[in-house]
């Protein structure tokens, strides 16, 4: 049966299915042959393809890891690739992939006419671990509300208090404040620190003298660290 024998609905279905990528194997081969043989059918597939492009508007933006560009520059023979930028992306990759598993995507149905583009509905997450057996801190940051939620388990009893830091690619820790020794802490991240919470940064924890406001810099070594990932 050729595509001209099909009812208009069958043809439209086949064109739509091809444009959406639903066809594989013999069905796909037959639809592709029909495109070559039948200009009207080919035009219908083209119309479908032009329409389906709209659907990408709903895909939330997610910043790729900083290291990704270097691979593209190398493969396209970019002469502007300088060692300094290589050092920078390598630095950003420390601890990367710690949370590569368990990827969950939240696709928002973004209005097509929303302009400028809305902040993507993503979370930054991290899991901090270190040398202290059993100490685990899970962090989840919601950019829309600048809210950082932490859950701490396995913190030993100490006279010091756990203080959380964000360490961006420049390596300088910025304090986000002290957190609960056990259970949940909610922090509204100060405006100046919000943009630092991205996949090229790490969270880190040091044990500091108890204080009601964040310290300027850590006085003790970091006891737990975790790479920030965006989901």
């Amino acid at each position, binding site marked *: 049966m050729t595509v001209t024998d099909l009812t208009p609905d069958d043809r439209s279905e086949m064109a739509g*299915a091809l444009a959406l*990528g639903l066809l594989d194997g013999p069905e796909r081969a037959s639809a592709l042959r029909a495109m070559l043989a039948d200009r009207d059918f080919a035009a219908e597939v083209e119309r479908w393809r032009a329409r389906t492009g709209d*659907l990408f508007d709903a895909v939330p933006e997610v910043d790729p890891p900083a290291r990704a560009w270097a691979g593209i520059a190398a*493969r396209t023979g970019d002469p502007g690739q300088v060692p300094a930028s290589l050092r920078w992306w390598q630095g950003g990759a420390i601890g990367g992939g710690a949370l*590569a598993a368990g*990827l969950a*995507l939240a696709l928002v*149905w973004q209005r097509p006419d929303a302009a400028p583009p809305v902040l993507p509905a993503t979370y930054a997450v991290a899991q901090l671990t270190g040398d202290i057996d059993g100490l685990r801190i899970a962090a989840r940051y919601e950019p829309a509300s600048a809210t950082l939620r932490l859950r701490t388990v396995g913190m030993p009893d100490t006279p010091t208090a756990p203080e959380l830091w964000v360490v961006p690619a420049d390596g300088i820790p910025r304090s986000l404040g002290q957190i609960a020794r056990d259970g949940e802490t909610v922090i509204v991240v100060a405006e100046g620190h919000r943009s630092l919470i991205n996949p090229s940064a790490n969270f880190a924890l040091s044990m500091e003298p108890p204080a009601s406001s964040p310290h300027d810099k850590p006085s003790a070594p970091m006891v737990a660290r975790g790479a920030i*990932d965006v989901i």
Partner: protein
Amino acid sequence: MTQARLTALLTSVAGGDHAALRQLYDLTSAKLFGVCLLAAQDRMGAEEAMQDAYVKIWRKAGYFDAMRASPIAWMCAIARNCAIDWRRAQARVPAPLEDAALDALMPEQAADHDGTHHLLDCVAQLKEAESRAVRFAFYEGLSHSELAARLALPLGTLKSLMRRAILALRKCVDDRD
């Protein structure tokens, strides 16, 4: 990020302008990475696929035809195809999304707005099961048989569902034109 700006950058990229590729990357990589994440269902895979996509864009920018597609849709389609290729090369069945992620994939009911001829609005107006199937098919790049497995439906049932969805979409778009 205007279409005209992206089109101009693609023209420069077609001429071998490395700086233009970098600018294009800065403007569009978050979008393309998002597209790759959905279709690859894997973060490392998405990164690889996105890199492949920009290498392809570098080589094929001369084929971009502004009359036939918007520059971002053209680039997203390349990225999606790279991610689908990556996933198929892994020879693995995509892991099902968590329930919460499934819920997040459901669209809000489309409210009336400026009446542009937008396929998203038509997808949002489909019956829930159809709308979900169309979005899984498109964003994850699933074939009929993969989609049937993902949605736990018999292949025949899934094909009928997709047929109804496609014909409803065509009618919706035609009614608006």
